[in-house]
């Protein structure tokens, strides 16, 4: 593998590894927690936790050390519906955010948006923060304010649309929600 490809591979895998580890920890956590319950109650969660941990561990190893992939080929085996996937790149665990279309039939939804892996996750984090902000607004103010403010701000700052479009979208959505929900609520007399 050329140096450039190696770098791409490495960059690709960090987030995969991270995700694998998070899920692995989740399974382990629940398996451990379930030991506190009575025998019958713990049986299924513990079994699932252990099974999930083992499977995830193998997946993690395969993702982290590509050499293992051929030895543990069942980890990468495709499902029953993925026969005609020869157009796909080998190793289906590779995420598609790099822009390779999965097959000739489906349109490339996850097509490259010109961002690096890190860049994309940073954007995701920002979106999540916006959504969390919406929830906070919802908790403390009327839902109409929350919806309006959220849409205007997100459209303007994240989607980089003009103020005009942002405010218009916010106003329309608010109007729609207002009619929808106030009408529905007011019908109950």
């Amino acid at each position, binding site marked *: 593998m050329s140096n450039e490809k190696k770098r791409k591979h490495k960059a690709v895998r960090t987030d995969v590894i991270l995700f694998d580890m998070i899920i692995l920890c989740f399974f382990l956590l629940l398996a451990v927690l379930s030991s506190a*319950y009575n025998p019958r109650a713990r049986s299924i969660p513990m079994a699932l936790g252990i099974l999930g941990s083992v*499977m995830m561990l193998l997946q993690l190893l395969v993702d982290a050390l590509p050499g293992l992939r051929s030895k543990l080929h069942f980890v990468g085996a495709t499902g029953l519906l993925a026969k005609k996937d020869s157009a796909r790149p080998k190793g289906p*665990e590779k995420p598609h955010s790099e822009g390779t279309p999965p097959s000739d039939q489906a*349109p490339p939804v996850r097509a490259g948006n010109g961002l690096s892996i890190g860049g994309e996750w940073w954007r995701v984090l920002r979106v999540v923060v916006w959504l969390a902000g919406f*929830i906070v607004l919802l908790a403390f103010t009327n839902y109409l304010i929350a919806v309006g403010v959220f849409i205007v701000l997100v459209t303007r700052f994240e989607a980089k649309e003009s103020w005009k479009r942002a405010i218009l979208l916010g106003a329309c959505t608010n109007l729609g929600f207002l009619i929808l929900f106030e009408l529905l609520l007011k019908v109950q007399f």
Partner: protein
Amino acid sequence: MYEAALPALMVMLAWPAPLYLVLGTLLGLLFGILPGLGGPQVLALLLPITYGMETHLAIVLLVGAMSSIAFGGSIPAILINTPGTPQSAATCFDGFPLAQQGKAGMAIGAAATASCLGAIFGALILTILLPVGRYVVLAFSYPEYFMLALMGLSVIAVVSKGSLWKGLIAACLGLILSTIGYDPVTGSVRFTFGTDYLWDGIRLVPAFIGLFAIGEAIDLFLGRGKIAQSPYAGRIGGIGKGIKAVFNHFGLFIRCSVIGTLVGIIPGVGGAVTNFLAYGHAAQASKNPEGFGRGDIRGVIAPEAANDSKDGGALVPTLLFGIPGSLEMAVFLGAMIVLGLEPGPRMMMDRPEVVLVLIYTLVAGNILVALIGIFGAGVLVKLTYVPSTLLAPVIFALGLMGAYLTHELLADVIIALIFGVLAFAMKRFDFSRIAVVIALVLGGLAQKTFHQTLLLWGYKGFFIRPISLGLFIVTMAMIVFPYVRSKLLARGEKRP
């Protein structure tokens, strides 16, 4: 009961019944479309309005609303990959890819037709089966429920695209999440971390909103494209093609309607299960299943037929025993009591015209909403051409509001957000969301019925009962068969 058939029809045609039908249907459609709102909510909304109304009109209004929910839920499933109600989740799997290919019209046309005809089928079966429905309802006990859940879970193996290993991990995740909460079987409370909210486990509606709406909206927002990637694939032609597709695959349609009706008759299994079973059956029974999940129209016809026919089926235990066949039926039963009716064995003898008005409304409502869907499809399809940067924020707001509106609990919204992020991550890393969804929905049922069977009869309980054994064999066949066939095909290709 059948002598009341004609008089009941007259009642339905007399003004203002048709007006109430239209009102109810439209309202139900709206609630079906909005994620987070569904059958129980629209019925709860309409109940106070029905005070003082004539019984027949009240039934027309209420049942009209109930009849359009199933199809209503499919519309956002197809257009924005968000089921309006959990029972339309499977429609997303192929409906949305179709929308992405610019074939939303076709998907909606097929969904409308399958829904409408499925509902008629269910109503027909209901009418025929009422005399013997009793035996069907009573034939299903804990082992049979377990086998049904198992069958639903096995669908995961069949429809997991990509790595089966990851699909199984996702299933494990869904299953372990389904153990959260109070378990009536063992009397213990698991993984609630001290909160009351998690006592009943992960609630399906916010989880679905998160997994589908939010997760998809995040993807959409980052993608900066539109939902429909391919050029506009012809409006009227699309819808017509969709309608025709149902007739082209009529055998599949009938089979899925049967599945839906049967599962509907069995109380407590629920609508969310029906559409997965139908979808799984369609995928596994076809000769070329790779298209599923990528925009195969059969993947729309199957669940749509099932989730509408199940409404007819659900009326069987409701009317025969006064035992609700589904959540909507439970609310509907309550509504009938408030109206002064008494659902149960006596109702068919005492007030057959009420039962018939009910059935007619179910059919009429479905026909009406299917027509609305077909004629309105052109407008709805335009949604898929809105730039995602404008559409996504609205979907976020709508989804989170939908999660909030069900019970005005912030925790629901937080769950939606968490599952949204999870869904997005799973999509990026090629873990099957379908597996998590199916496992989450069926996990509880599977565990409960497993324990119940063991308590009463031990392990042999699963295998000595004919229906249970039969279902088990079918499930095993469903898993093994495609694998065997592909091996045989491969061997066949190798030979010169």
